[in-house]
């Protein structure tokens, strides 16, 4: 018996050893490797899946049209399950992949972004954490390899307050108003708090912070407190199951939905659909459009999904997070195109793509050419500013789809930018980083 077990174990371990020898790689023509760190499993999969599908479909579209200036992109998905250590494993595995290494990493998780920020200096690969990650990375003088455009949590918080001010009839009317910030009790959720505190002082509204612990399936206590406070507005930085429960609980205490605003990770189809009719009227922020009414979406349907290369269900095209994946890839491929303007049409290294990201100038005309006119705001990145304090729009769930209910709201750069520079300067001091001069020499 025991001997049999041993043989069994021996065989298992032999198979196991074989697993680690890498699979044969097919040599191909010049191509770029674009790692896609996604989470299609685990507690946050409902949010990770549409994003990953958007990324995959858009790259498939670009490739179907011949790639970026003729250079194909090889998208390699690596499943992180939103776990930091797995994300690091993915990074180590993929950073040297392909003829010239990975082009750029989109970690899709604040935790993983933090891990990668320092590693990328050494490995010379840029990280683009689009609307998440370390807000201070907006200061490109300190964070040479990290980008977080088009906008950040801090910018978003100030834009939301601006919107609320507008709804109340002017910023002066904010005085004495009660605003509650219901947030995920994690570094991500707390990110907006400092900005909100500064604004509360500046405009004289009363801010109450209500943290909700992960995962947030039970929020009775939180919403009872909201019920007692009867705030004029509720802003939420939630994630995953927390959002769905919050919307249900808000409905259960009869809180007016149109005074309830989620941040851009709390206002997606996954958040409102499970709540059913209760969610109608719920608002959220966005930095890109919702729906599939753009020519690019039609192209994805025709050139990707009809050819059987679609990543997800056809109905998923145009969901908020799907579109976020699309806009992320628009930024990425356009940065590659920009870099090719300087370095020539070839497979670009991480360092070259970094230059492309830093010199990206995505105009309204170019967006229109891409079939995404008005989908997102034009953007221009610079050495100093890796974030651009990009504007946000408020969208509202009408029971079936998200519709824009505001124009682009420009965040209060005068409040946010000094905070960013201060945080970046502290970081530079702690890590002894030489601050770039941004005169083209570094």
């Amino acid at each position: 018996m025991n001997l049999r077990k041993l043989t069994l174990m021996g065989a298992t371990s032999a198979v196991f050893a074989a697993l680690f020898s890498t699979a044969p790689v097919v040599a191909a023509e010049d191509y770029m490797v674009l790692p896609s760190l996604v989470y299609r499993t685990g507690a946050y999969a409902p949010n990770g899946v549409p994003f990953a599908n958007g990324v995959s479909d858009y790259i498939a579209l670009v490739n179907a049209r011949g790639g970026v200036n003729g250079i194909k992109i090889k998208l390699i998905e690596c499943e992180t399950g939103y776990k930091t250590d797995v994300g690091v494993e993915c990074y180590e595995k993929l950073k040297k992949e392909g003829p010239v290494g990975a082009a750029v990493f989109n970690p899709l998780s604040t935790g993983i972004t933090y891990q990668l920020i320092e590693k990328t200096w050494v490995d010379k690969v840029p990280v683009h954490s689009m609307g998440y990650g370390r807000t201070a990375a907006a200061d490109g003088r300190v964070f040479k390899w990290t980008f977080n455009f088009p906008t950040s949590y801090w910018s978003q918080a100030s834009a939301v307050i601006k919107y609320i001010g507008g709804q109340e009839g002017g910023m002066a009317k904010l005085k004495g108003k009660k605003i509650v910030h219901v947030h995920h009790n994690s570094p991500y959720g707390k990110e907006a708090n400092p900005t909100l505190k500064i604004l509360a002082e500046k405009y004289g509204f009363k801010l109450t912070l209500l943290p909700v612990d992960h995962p947030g399936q039970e929020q009775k206590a939180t919403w009872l407190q909201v019920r007692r406070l009867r705030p004029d507005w509720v802003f939420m930085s939630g994630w995953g199951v927390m959002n769905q429960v919050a919307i249900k609980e808000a409905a259960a205490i009869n809180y007016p939905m149109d005074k309830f605003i989620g941040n851009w990770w709390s206002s997606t189809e996954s958040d409102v659909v499970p709540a059913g009719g209760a969610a109608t009227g719920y608002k959220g922020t966005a930095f890109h459009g919702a729906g599939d009414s753009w020519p690019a979406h039609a192209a994805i349907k025709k050139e990707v999904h009809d050819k059987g290369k679609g990543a997800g269900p056809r109905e998923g095209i145009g969901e908020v997070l799907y579109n976020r994946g699309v806009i992320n890839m628009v930024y990425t491929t356009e940065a590659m195109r920009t870099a090719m303007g300087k370095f020539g049409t070839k497979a670009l290294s991480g360092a070259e793509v970094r230059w492309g990201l830093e010199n990206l100038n995505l105009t309204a005309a170019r967006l229109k050419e891409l079939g995404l006119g008005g989908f997102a705001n034009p953007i221009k990145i610079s050495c100093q500013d890796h974030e651009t304090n990009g504007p946000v729009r408020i969208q509202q769930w009408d029971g079936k789809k998200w519709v824009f209910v505001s124009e682009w709201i420009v965040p209060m750069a005068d409040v946010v930018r000094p905070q960013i520079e201060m945080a970046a300067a502290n970081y530079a001091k702690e890590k002894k980083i030489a601050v770039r001069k941004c005169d083209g020499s570094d």
Partner: protein
Amino acid sequence: MDTLYAFFVAPFLDIADSPVFFIEVVIGGLSAGVMYSLVALGFVLIFKASGVFNFAQGVLALFAALTLVGFMDWGIPAPIAVLMTAAVMVVLAYAIERLVLRHLVNQEQIILFMSTLGLAYFLEGLGDTLWGSNVKRLDLGIPEASFEIQGVLLNQFELVAAASAATMVAVLAVFFHRTRVGRALRAVADDHQAALSVGIPLKSIWVVVWSVAGLVALVAGIMWGTKSGVQFSLSLIALKALPVLILGGFTSVPGAIVGGLIIGVGEKVAEVYWGPVLGGAIENWFAYVLALGFLLVRPQGLFGEKIIERV
């Protein structure tokens, strides 16, 4: 001094100041507690009859809810879908006994515990593979509107949840005390070997217990799934049931109910009145501390039998 005041005096003044709101908090706590009890019940049933601390209970609830939603998506009417899901849970119970438990008879408790963790992984993967990992809406037509009585806010859904928990406990009580299988179950819980020697088939009893736990998981899955949508996070409700378990005792059905209510009320009152002093989001660990404090006084839990040890 200010902190002491904020901690020891202010909350009580607050309670005295608005008793209606305090009642609301207590009711909120009770309704949350019922939801915890629903999950804890499944743990208790299995632990009682087989000594297995079944960590897969949360995943069972997820799996049941996923299956139910899957059936309903095929256009099967809700009542039939529920029955079909119940049948699936029974088949699952049989498979678990046949493939896992039977081979682990007489192993130490921690090994059995770990095997249920393995089971949890397996079912998670299976559920995701079969039904996909997007959030699904579960709507059995349970009313959800809120209404006020004397200024106290009540919610129909919570009343339904409480009623179904009460029904389930009543049914279980009858099942345990009035039926042949129930008596056999109690015998097994008391002593495996003695039960075997009087001719109770241990293996089929385990199938019965796991089936019942599967059905309890189905009810819990429906209740929690209606609230938050059916998704992976549903499996994490197991963590909410653990403090209930140590408070109520691993082997007591009434303990699971009363424990759930105590934990529910305790954590809500703590969060609402003491949370702001401590910075909020204290309810998760407070539930454990509350249960722990209780245990230090009564190590066998609320309704547990007195532990007698001999050398």
